[in-house]
């Protein structure tokens, strides 16, 4: 149902991908850890390999949990579909769109 307005009501999204240049927003949700109240939001280059994303952005965020272990293994999914990112995969390779949510649970 469109907005009822006195004139044409059409505005661009304020968080559309092009506003981030070569980057995109990615949410990472540690699903079985209530220590973190919500999924984390990161801005990352779209071409960033998974291994760099994990070590440069995800780990520094989640290691704030005192129970964090660098050896912990995780299973990943996007909107309920399991994914297995390889070290060289980009977000596009694993199907993670701008503002998509990557869920992870302890394996």
């Amino acid at each position, binding site marked *: *149902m*469109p*907005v*009822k*307005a*006195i004139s044409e*009501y*059409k*505005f*661009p*999204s*304020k*968080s*559309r*991908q092009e*506003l*981030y240049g070569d980057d995109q*927003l990615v*949410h990472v*949700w540690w*699903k079985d850890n*209530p*220590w*973190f*109240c*919500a*999924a*984390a*939001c*990161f*801005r990352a280059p779209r071409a960033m390999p998974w291994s760099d994303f994990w070590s440069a952005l995800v780990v*520094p*965020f989640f290691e*704030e949990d*005192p*129970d964090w272990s660098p050896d912990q293994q995780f299973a990943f999914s996007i*909107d309920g579909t399991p994914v297995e990112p390889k070290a060289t995969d980009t977000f596009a390779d694993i199907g993670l*769109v*701008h*503002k*998509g*949510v990557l*869920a992870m649970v302890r394996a």
Partner: protein
Amino acid sequence: MTIAPKAPRKLSMKDRYSALTRDLAWDPSYVTNEEMFPFTNFEGITIHDWSKWEDPFRLTVDAYTKYQAEKDKRLYAVLDGFAQSQGHLGLTDASYLNAMKLFIQGVSPLEYQAHRNFAYLARHLNGPGPRFAALCQSLDEIRHIQTEVHTLSNYNKLYTGFHSYVWQHDRVWYLSVPKSFFDDAVSAGPFEFLIAIGFSFEYLLTNLLFVPFMSGASFNGDLPTMTFGFSAQSDESRHMTLGLEAIKFLLEQDEKNVPLVQHWIDKWFWRGYRLLALVAQMLDYMLPRKVMSWKEAFDLYFEQQMLGGLFVDLAYYGITPPKFVEQAKEEKEYLSHQVYWTLYQFSHAASFTTSIPTDEHMEWLSANYPKFDELYKPLWEKEKRNVAAGGRHFDRGLPELCSVCQIPMLFTEPGDPTTICQRHSDFEGERFNFCSDGCKNIFDHEPEKYVQAWLPVHQIFQGNCGGASIPDVLAWYRMNPEDGGEYLGSTDHQNWLAWHDMAEKTGGN
């Protein structure tokens, strides 16, 4: 004998009211009604007879200003006395003022927004009755923000976090929640605004907003805020009456209005309820001396009074309780805990402080919430160990936000308080995320409105908030380092201890 002419009879209040409102109305002769009132058609509401509006405000401007001046005199006398007697030292604890910081940053600016839009209605509604009612409410709202600012300004001289509330309201991440709520309302049409603010906010949810804050003030030694509350109470009663009259008027004018009004009730109940998440945590976590739990407040002021009373009456018009109300009822067990846990880990970027609940506080939470020991106490116990080891749980990044309510996505699935609720919609090739079915439903009805939402996290990442680092953003927020973070050991806490120590040594002089 001549008979002296009778002295002019003084009009009764009712007659003067009528003269002021109905008798000053006229039908335009050189423009059409549509040209004079151009904003009351596009929403699809049908009004057959504006004179059927029952005036809830039987006041004239002179009577209105007389009453308000008397109330103001009493309030300002209390403010002076409180300031001169160092009344702030009689608060239960300096941490109580976190609730008031949230109030002035989050709620008071909404009074000003309400003032502006009721002034707009006072010009643009077709009927003289609702125009005058809107004028009175507009005056009330500007008076409320003025008296709230004056009431709390005394604390600004002595405590952190009060200094830049206007600037912060337009920028800070957690204040985008109330701001976006009202921006949504004022950018709607006049009838939706009446249902959004006049009915849903001022009638349906007002007791859940004001009673906790004002009772909290009373229970915690904050005489000025309590006096402000009393001063505003009679106004709020009139606002509630106006809200009820607004919905009755729309429903009685034409049956075609019913589905539109129902949709607005569904939408604005959910939007208002999400906003009140901030009140829920305030009641259960920020008040050193408790008034009642959020669960009790929700049960009394919403379930009993509104669902058990108001909506029974509205069923006559074909109106049903708001969509997703069952989810809200379920959340009363969890809401405050989830929200405070969130504020706790982001309070390094806030203009208030947080702390681990004391043992006594946790006992109260356990006693009031059967699931507390299972779901939330373990988190606080873990944080106690973390603090003992020299840590403090502050998130190192930014959270995912709901694209409608703008709250971090902290709420859980219906029926499962251990799993965060994730919903999303795709619109014109872009993904938008939501915290609940309620917020997704709102977006799906009007996606064009919410795609332009100024989501603080996204704006920070776009570089529009002072810089990329947290210190840059806090500087842009005009937050001083002492404004937020941990309460224990904070500037407010240290001053509080020093002032009380000094008062003890000098025998209170």
